[in-house]
Every structure is written in structure tokens, then in C-alpha cells.
């Protein structure tokens, strides 16, 4: 009971806050389902549902009536606090403090029914959400999964409608889906229901037959298994290759940005995720990579005017070298001290490239322009749709190297150092060499990313390399899952890709970042896609047996 009240109060405060900072109102401009429900209302309902679910989950004893009572109570409190906001707002003018506390907001919150009726509606909606959350908690696991994913897909389709519509319309036969699924703003009712049913049916089918298919696959002899796996990989590669043509210009641009962050994230993953060295100045190597590329290739400065490919080896060497250079003075530092020292290094590089002193060589505040595009045999990596391939190749290369390193003597040395530096040293690991190698590898990846960034923009400016980039990359790794390669990709997609897609809500970007980080730490500290435990004791023996059987 006490728990339910507490959770309800937290949820209520969150909803009031979301309303007052204007998020609800901004989100209301987009409908999830046309004329039925907007993104703003969805946001409020999701919070209420989540709090109801938490209250249900924390109910001691778990008698179903108690669960429902608690969840509806917390929902009621959430609704109550929002009603309180409406009542206070109708009596006092809150706009002096909260710019967004406008009549429009109250209209939205009261479903345009006026304060008196609206308050009852709000309380009812809160309690109803609570009850639904409680029922959801009590329902069997399969049903929960199906409901969660299908409803999530409907909401996702609604949120990303601006992106799905043009993508479908690029494809003649698929354009019909547009008509059926979307209106000018939001999903159609039949579209939403159809999507829900489709996803639910797929999930149910998989839950029935999935295990059969999986065991069937495992019972196959190794040769066809390998063929199936290979064809799976081939299909994936094919999809990756045709993606920019399918998605069009805007989405390809988003993909290149996400890809650059994946590259950066994979590099920092070696330093932070594997070796446990919290480096907050990682943007420095990105800048060094970009500027080295610019200096070596740009005819504007006219020093070398190399081509991109001629410059690339020097860029990587420069990155690796600067990684060692930064690593050397901070070898003895651990944890927080290391973070602060590296933070300083990031700023030093930015201020250096900005300085008037180095202007003749690095262009100062005006940056360096006219950086040539990369090209292979006449194919120029000019626009986002072409640069995409360059980045894809970079990501695949870096993933390949990361995987090889992870399962090696060096990867283990890094992870041992992360776990316990003193013991790692006592096990024969040379800390100096191992740390410097981690810094150098990470810096090399980052410099590669910087080189691609420079040719993508054709110019480099000091302000592209501020400390926020470092922070973003660290967030990508934390949210994705420390030390996990798929985690980096998922993290970059979530933290960099989504905000790019939802540009009109850009002002809430940092707010959502902070909220996401806190939520992650509380709910899923291991990250969205945590590093899998490596199975080595039996894995290799099984393979050997399989070989024996087939041979």
C-alpha cells in the first residue's frame, strides 16, 4: 500500500513535470492513431501504465485483488496529481514560472472537457491505466510479451510515421500500404488494428513453432547448418548493401551519422568496455583524425594534397601515435582521476585547433575546407548514399578486429586489467604495454572515424569536436552495454539515430538522454544488449565432435 502510494506519487510528479516542460504539448501535435490518440497522451498513459505495473510488481503476497488494488491506487494517484496541476493552473497563472503552462496544455490534459469534468476524466483514466497495468501484470507471460511487442510496434509505427511513409512511397507496390496504414497525421484505425493483429499473430506463431524450428535446425547435420548460416549472413549483407537505395537520402544520412558513432563507440569500447579505462577525452582522437586528413588532402592549405586513400594510413598512424602520447602521462591514474585528465586532453586538442597560433596550419576558427571525396575506380563517395558504404566498410573492419582481439590473449589481458589491475599484473600482464595498446587501438579506430567524417563534410571546424561528442560516445557504450559489440550498435541507434529521426523534438534531446541514463542504471545496469558470457569450455569440444560425426 505504502509502496503503491510512493510509486503513484513519483509517476504523478513525472507526468506534471513532462506537462510543464512542454513535452506533452509538443508531442500532442503528432497523432499515433489519427483523431484517436496523440503522442502526448500516449506518453502520459505509458508513464501511468509503467507506474501501475511497478506497483503491482512490488505488492507483497501477490494476491490478485491486492495487486489490482495497488496498481489502480497508484494509477489514481498519478491521475490525481495531474488533476491537481489542472486545478491549480485554472486558479493561478503558472505561466510566470512555467512558460509552457498554457491553456492549450490544460485543454489537452482534460480532454477538452473543461476543468470539472476533465478532473474526473483524468482520475478515471489514471485508475483505468492502473487496473490495466495490474491485469497486464497478472496475465500469463506469453500474453504479456505479445501485448507489449505488438502495442510497442503500433506506437513505434506512429512515432516514426514521417520516416516510414516516404520509405514506402519509394517503392511502387508498397505505396498501397501507405494508403491503408497512414493518414496525413497518424495511423488509420484499421491500420493500427491490422498492424497489432499482424505482429501478435507472428509472435504467437513463433512461440508455438519457434522451438520446433530451432531444434529442427540444430538436428540438421553440420554441413546444411553451415549453408543455412552462411545464407543468413549473405542475406544480411545484401540488405546492408541495398539499404541506402531503399531508404532514400534522408535516412541514408541518418545511417551515416549512426555509423560514425558506431565506429567511435567501437573504438571507445576497447578503452572503456574492455580495458576499463574511463576516457572522457575521446573526441580528441576523432579531431586528430579529421584534422590530419584535412591537412594532408585539402588543396586549400596546399601542403600535400594527397588523395583520401593516400592519406588514410598516415591518419591511422597519427591516431595511434596520439593515443600512446595521451596514454603515457596517465598510466598511473585510475577511475575518476583518469576521467578528469583525459577530459582535459580533449579540450586541449580543441583549443589548439582553434588557436590563432596554429592558424596557418590548421585554419583556426574558419577550419579547413575543400577536403576531397574518397573514390575507388571512378566511384566517388560523394553523398550520404555513397558515404554509407565507406562507413559500413569501416564498421565491418573494426567489428572484425574487435572480435578477434576480444577472444585473444590481449582482450583477456584488457578485461583482467578492468576487473583487478593489481592481480592482472601479478598474473604476468605488463600494465604499461597493455594500457598503451588499448589507448592506441581505440585512438586508431577513432582517427579512422575522423577521416571519414572529414571527407563526408568536405571541411572540418573546431566546434565539431566539443566535449559533448565524448559524452555522447560514453553514453552510447553505457546504454548499449559495456564491452558489448552489438550493444554499441544498439546504443548508437537508440541515442543517435532516434534523435535524428525525431528532429522536431530536438529541444528535449538532452532531457531524454539524462532520463534514459538514469532509467538504464536503475532498471538495466548491464545495458540494452549486454556482453554475452563466452562459452569456451565445451564449445570447442562440441565442434570437434560435430566434425568427427560428419567426417
Amino acid at each position, binding site marked *: 500500500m505504502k509502496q503503491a502510494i510512493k510509486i503513484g506519487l513519483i509517476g504523478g510528479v513525472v507526468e506534471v513535470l513532462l506537462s510543464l516542460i512542454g513535452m506533452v504539448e509538443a508531442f500532442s501535435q503528432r497523432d499515433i492513431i489519427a483523431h484517436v490518440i496523440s503522442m502526448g497522451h500516449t506518453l502520459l498513459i505509458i508513464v501511468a501504465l509503467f507506474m501501475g505495473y511497478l506497483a503491482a510488481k512490488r505488492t507483497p503476497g501477490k494476491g490478485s485483488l491486492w495487486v489490482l488494488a495497488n496498481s489502480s491506487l497508484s494509477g489514481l494517484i498519478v491521475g490525481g496529481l495531474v488533476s491537481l496541476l489542472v486545478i491549480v493552473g485554472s486558479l493561478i497563472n503558472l505561466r510566470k514560472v512555467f512558460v509552457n503552462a498554457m491553456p492549450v496544455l490544460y485543454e489537452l490534459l482534460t480532454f477538452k472537457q473543461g476543468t470539472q469534468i476533465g478532473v474526473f476524466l483524468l482520475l478515471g483514466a489514471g485508475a483505468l491505466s492502473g487496473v490495466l497495468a495490474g491485469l497486464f501484470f497478472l496475465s500469463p507471460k506469453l500474453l504479456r510479451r505479445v501485448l507489449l511487442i505488438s502495442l510497442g510496434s503500433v506506437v513505434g509505427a506512429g512515432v516514426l510515421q514521417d520516416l516510414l511513409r516516404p520509405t514506402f512511397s519509394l517503392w511502387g507496390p508498397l505505396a498501397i500500404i501507405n494508403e491503408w496504414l497512414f493518414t496525413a497525421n497518424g495511423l488509420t484505425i484499421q491500420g493500427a488494428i491490422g498492424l497489432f493483429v499482424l505482429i501478435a499473430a507472428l509472435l504467437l506463431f513463433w512461440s508455438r513453432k519457434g522451438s520446433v524450428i530451432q531444434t529442427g535446425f540444430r538436428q540438421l547435420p553440420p554441413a546444411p547448418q553451415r549453408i543455412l548460416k552462411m545464407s543468413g549472413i549473405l542475406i544480411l549483407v545484401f540488405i546492408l548493401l541495398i539499404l541506402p537505395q531503399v531508404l532514400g537520402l534522408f535516412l541514408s544520412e541518418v545511417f551515416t551519422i549512426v555509423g560514425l558513432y558506431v565506429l567511435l563507440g567501437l573504438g571507445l569500447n576497447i578503452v572503456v568496455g574492455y580495458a576499463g579505462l574511463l576516457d572522457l577525452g575521446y573526441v580528441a582522437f576523432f579531431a586528430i583524425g579529421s584534422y590530419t586528413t584535412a591537412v594532408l588532402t585539402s588543396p586549400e592549405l596546399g601542403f600535400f594534397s594527397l588523395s583520401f586513400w593516400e592519406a588514410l594510413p598516415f591518419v591511422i598512424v597519427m591516431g595511434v601515435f596520439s593515443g600512446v602520447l595521451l596514454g603515457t602521462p596517465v598510466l598511473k591514474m585510475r577511475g575518476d582521476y583518469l576521467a578528469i585528465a583525459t577530459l582535459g586532453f580533449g579540450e586541449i586538442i580543441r583549443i589548439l585547433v582553434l588557436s590563432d597560433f596554429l592558424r596557418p596550419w590548421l585554419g583556426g576558427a574558419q577550419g579547413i575546407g575543400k577536403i576531397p571525396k574518397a573514390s575507388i575506380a571512378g566511384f566517388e563517395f560523394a553523398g550520404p548514399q555513397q558515404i554509407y558504404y565507406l562507413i559500413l566498410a569501416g564498421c565491418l573492419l573494426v567489428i572484425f578486429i574487435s572480435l578477434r582481439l576480444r577472444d585473444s*590473449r590481449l582482450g583477456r589481458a584488457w578485461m583482467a586489467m578492468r*576487473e583487478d589491475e593489481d*592481480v592482472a599484473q601479478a598474473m604476468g*600482464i605488463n600494465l604499461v604495454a597493455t594500457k598503451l595498446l588499448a589507448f592506441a587501438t581505440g585512438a586508431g579506430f577513432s582517427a579512422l572515424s575522423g577521416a571519414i567524417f572529414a571527407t563526408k563534410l568536405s571541411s572540418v571546424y573546431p566546434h565539431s569536436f566539443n566535449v559533448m561528442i565524448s559524452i555522447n560516445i560514453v553514453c552510447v557504450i553505457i546504454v548499449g552495454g559495456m564491452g558489448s559489440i552489438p550493444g554499441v550498435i544498439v546504443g548508437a541507434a537508440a541515442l543517435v539515430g532516434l534523435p535524428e529521426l525525431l528532429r522536431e523534438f530536438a529541444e528535449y534531446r538532452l532531457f531524454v538522454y539524462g532520463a534514459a541514463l538514469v532509467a538504464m542504471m536503475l532498471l538495466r545496469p548491464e545495458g540494452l544488449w549486454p556482453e554475452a*558470457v563466452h562459452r569456451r569450455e565445451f564449445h570447442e569440444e562440441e565442434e570437434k565432435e560435430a566434425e568427427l560425426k560428419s567426417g
Partner: protein
Amino acid sequence: MVLLSTKKVTKRFGGLVAVGDLDIEIREKSIHSIIGPNGAGKTTFFNCITGFYKPEEGEILFNDHSLVGLLPDRIVRFGISRTYQNIRLFPNLTAMENILVGLHGHLHAGFFGIVMSTPATRKEEKEAAEEARRLLKFVNLAGKGDFLAKNLPYGDQRRLEIARALASRPKLLLLDEPTAGMNPRETQDMMDFIQHLRDELGITILLIEHQMRVVMGISEIVTVLDYGEKIAEGTPTEIQGNPKVIEAYLGRGSTGEERQIVS
């Protein structure tokens, strides 16, 4: 033959002399115990041998090589390996990986060899995995290699830590209270295991231990420390009767009954 000898080793922390003028000789293939009350400097002495601390004075010779001033990662390559009083495994690595880290010094693959996955690297990795499996079996952990170290029960963690230490192929193994927190049954198993290490693998064992039953049961030589200094040395029987030892443990004027407890 003497494997490890220390001459006048002294380690101070500020004004406190943790280890003072310590001379110890450890014979090859012996089981040698160091005992003493809490704070007597036993673990500090271990830290001096393994290079974690640098003694202010004195000399540590291992097979006629001086160890003073060398870093731990160099010293382990000479063939000295250790376990810790409060188990210090790599908690988020699997048991296999813990042992593989122990093998680190015997693997040679470099950055490019690893990225290219050269035949030499592959062969080395395969052999390392085989050796790790063999060690798992040796410490009775076969089948638990893919568990995260932190998820293993206490006794398994103790044995895994020894397996990790053995992976570096030591000539001298330093065990810091290997039976701490064990029940009589587990303690007996550990004693048998330590004896087995010496008899089968020919590893010299230096042991810090509080349980008198263990000390008296398996050691050939016992050194007693008090306030960082050696107050007695000899066979278990000699130590048991030594009045200085009894005094260090129980204080002056202890009764006969208390003496019985010590022995």
C-alpha cells in the same frame, strides 16, 4: 637446495615496521608455513616477494636472481605465483578465462598475429584452452568452466584461484590462508590437495595459515612472525613447544589449558 632466500628484508609504512630484518630460506619442494598473530607482517612479506611492495632494505634471491625492485609481472615469469587472503578472482570473467589470464605470460601472440589469426596464434590459443581445461579438471572444476567466477560457490572460487596461479607454471606457490572460511571437511580436502601439488607437480609451497591443524599437519618447516620479526623457526613439533611462540599467541602467563589449545 634453497629456492628462495631473503636477507634482512625490511618494509616500513611510515614509522611502522611491518617486516623487519627478515631472513628466511625456503628449500626446494618443501611445504613451508608462516604463522603469526594478526598484523605480524605475513601478507606484507608475500607482497614483498611478489613485487607488489618494494622493501626498503634487504635482498630477495630466487634461484640466485634478485627480485627486489622488479614489477609483479616480471616476477611471475621467474616462476612465483600467489593466491590472496580475500579471494581476488576476475569476477566478471568465466572460470576458463580466469585461468587463461593466468597463462598470459606463456602466450606470445601479438596484435597483428591476432587480427590476422595466423596459424601460430590459432595453435597457441587451442593449446592454451586445452591446458586451461586440464587445470579445471585438476582442481575438480570440470564442467564449471563457463560459469562467471563471481557465481561460483566459495570453495570453488578458492580452488579456481589456485588453478589460475598454477596456470603460470610456478616453481614456488604462495598461498595466503587457503583454508580460511572452510569447514573441517573442506579443510582436510585442501590439505590433501596442497600435499598433492607438491608431491605430483614438485611445486614448492609457501603458506600463510591460521588453522594450527593445517600448519602442523602438512608443513615441514614453520616460521613464526611477530611484529614483523622472526621469533622462531623449525619443524612443527619444535614450534609447538617453543615458549616464545606461545607467548606471542596468548600473551605472557597463559595457563596450561590455553597451551593445549595452541597445540
